[in-house]
């Protein structure tokens, strides 16, 4: 007799659980040693809270009513709940705040590779440290945590979620044409992007910048090739990462966009060559906590623990 569980969920049995525990303990102690205090927040939030953080509710897919008819939602990430905590319960604590978490989040998106609807996130939030200083700390700590997890070849992709918008501003691309362009870049349909840019009737130089800049990926040389002031913030970030000895694992990717709407600057993704999908991601979100009434800049990173575990296993097989 079959007693199914909902698609995108899974049971964990003891052998796997031991490995997952070891992984999360390693991450937790790395975060803890760096001064990041662990927090817990409820799995259920008022839907309005998620919508305050992100107009689309950050992709929350499961909603229910409580006994008073209030709409609750299963959290779709940990960043919005933590922004709420920082603005409320921790409202008197002087910044910078360093917080970490381990918890399940829920998304009902179309199922893709290794994409579960219930997944365990482990991550860090660094609140009140502006600009490249904050981002460098978050990236370096993520690298350390994955070192501790036994990965050897992991990389952090770094882009700027606002870069393409600024390029579109510079090129005076009309508002109504932007949605499709951003959609193409977001899906990395570079053929579609080029075609649509060609329809805009721009000068050759502007056209090339819109098409070529987002396809630049690589080390610091990418920032040189990009030229101009557009990536000054990433140049500064690279310098700070180099000072920390954390620059070698970074790949600048000037076409990187993240799906969530609350990012306001640099965005990150984590990769390992043994698996074909990102292990996690994050970025700078300087306006999110302000939406809960406490204007504080912040950035953070979330790892999908299940995917990091897959990468661990794949790397071990290759050794």
């Amino acid at each position, binding site marked *: 007799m079959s007693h199914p569980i909902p698609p995108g969920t899974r049971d964990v049995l003891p052998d796997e659980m031991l490995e997952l525990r070891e992984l999360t303990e390693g991450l937790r102690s790395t975060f803890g040693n760096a001064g990041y205090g662990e927090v817990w927040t409820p799995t259920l939030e008022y839907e309005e809270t998620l919508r305050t953080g992100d107009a689309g509710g950050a992709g929350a897919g499961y909603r229910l009513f409580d006994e008073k008819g209030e709409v609750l939602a299963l959290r779709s990430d940990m960043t919005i709940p933590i922004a709420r905590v920082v603005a409320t319960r921790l409202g008197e604590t002087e910044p910078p705040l360093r917080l970490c978490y381990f918890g399940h989040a829920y998304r009902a998106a179309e199922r*893709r590779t290794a994409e579960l609807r219930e997944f365990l996130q482990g991550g860090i939030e660094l609140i009140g440290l502006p600009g490249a200083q904050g981002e460098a700390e978050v990236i370096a700590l993520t690298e350390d945590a994955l070192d501790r997890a036994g990965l050897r070849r992991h990389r952090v992709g770094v882009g700027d979620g606002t870069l393409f918008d600024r390029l579109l501003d510079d090129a005076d691309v009309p508002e109504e044409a932007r949605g499709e362009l951003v959609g193409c870049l977001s899906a*990395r349909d570079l*053929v579609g992007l080029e075609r649509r840019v060609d329809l805009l009737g721009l000068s050759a130089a502007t056209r090339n910048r819109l098409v070529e800049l987002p396809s630049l*990926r690589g080390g610091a040389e990418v920032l040189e090739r990009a030229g101009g002031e557009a990536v000054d913030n990433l140049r500064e970030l690279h310098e700070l990462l180099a000072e920390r000895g954390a620059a070698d694992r970074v*790949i600048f990717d000037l076409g990187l966009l993240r799906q969530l709407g609350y990012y306001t600057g640099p965005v990150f993704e984590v990769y390992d*060559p043994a698996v*074909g*999908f990102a292990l996690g991601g994050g970025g700078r979100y300087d306006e999110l906590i302000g939406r809960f009434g406490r204007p504080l800049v912040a950035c953070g990173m979330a790892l999908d623990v299940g995917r990091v575990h897959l990468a661990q296993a794949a790397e071990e097989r290759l050794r």
Partner: protein
Amino acid sequence: MSAPLLTVAVPRGALFAETLDLLDRLELDTADVRANDRRLWFADAGIVTVRPSDVPTYVEHGAADLGITGKDVLAERTDADVYELVDLGFGFCRMVVAAREGEDSIGESLRRLGRVRIATKYPRTASAWFARTGRQAEVVEVKGSVELAPLCGLADAIVDLTATGRTLEENGLEIIEEIGPSTARLVANPVAHKLKAAEIDDLVARIRGLE
């Protein structure tokens, strides 16, 4: 021989010959692939041969860094997270709506039944097309010989890919709408696109330099 820098998923089927020609021009060694019709994996050349519709799957999972497949396949596999890098230009065909010649079967069904029944191997493409053109459609997925569906009453019309239109004609069908053209595309795994950026960019530049 050292391991190749990139693994490419090559589609067996209509695009196979032109894909191998392209790889030859890029100085990849396809002699083994040409000589072995049944072998699937060519480790020395960095080539895996798969069904065209499986290319997005292999590439999405990172089993191949790059792949070549038709835009028709990509439009159907919107669930697969792959990057579309280059329009390779060959393998031109059109995605069309076709119905029995001389009959307005779609109009008739819409008028009397409020919906049209469409048989296709491309359910997402078909649903999206009828949604975009504001018509209710019931999409029936079949795996092959789609041309049969309107003839024996399985569907009012079909959505299918055609190069010359000959098969449609021979089965008494005519093209009544054109959804869009399709050509072969080079796609990349999202992680490989970053971690092997230099190798991939070099290959893309050489493809663009061919013409």
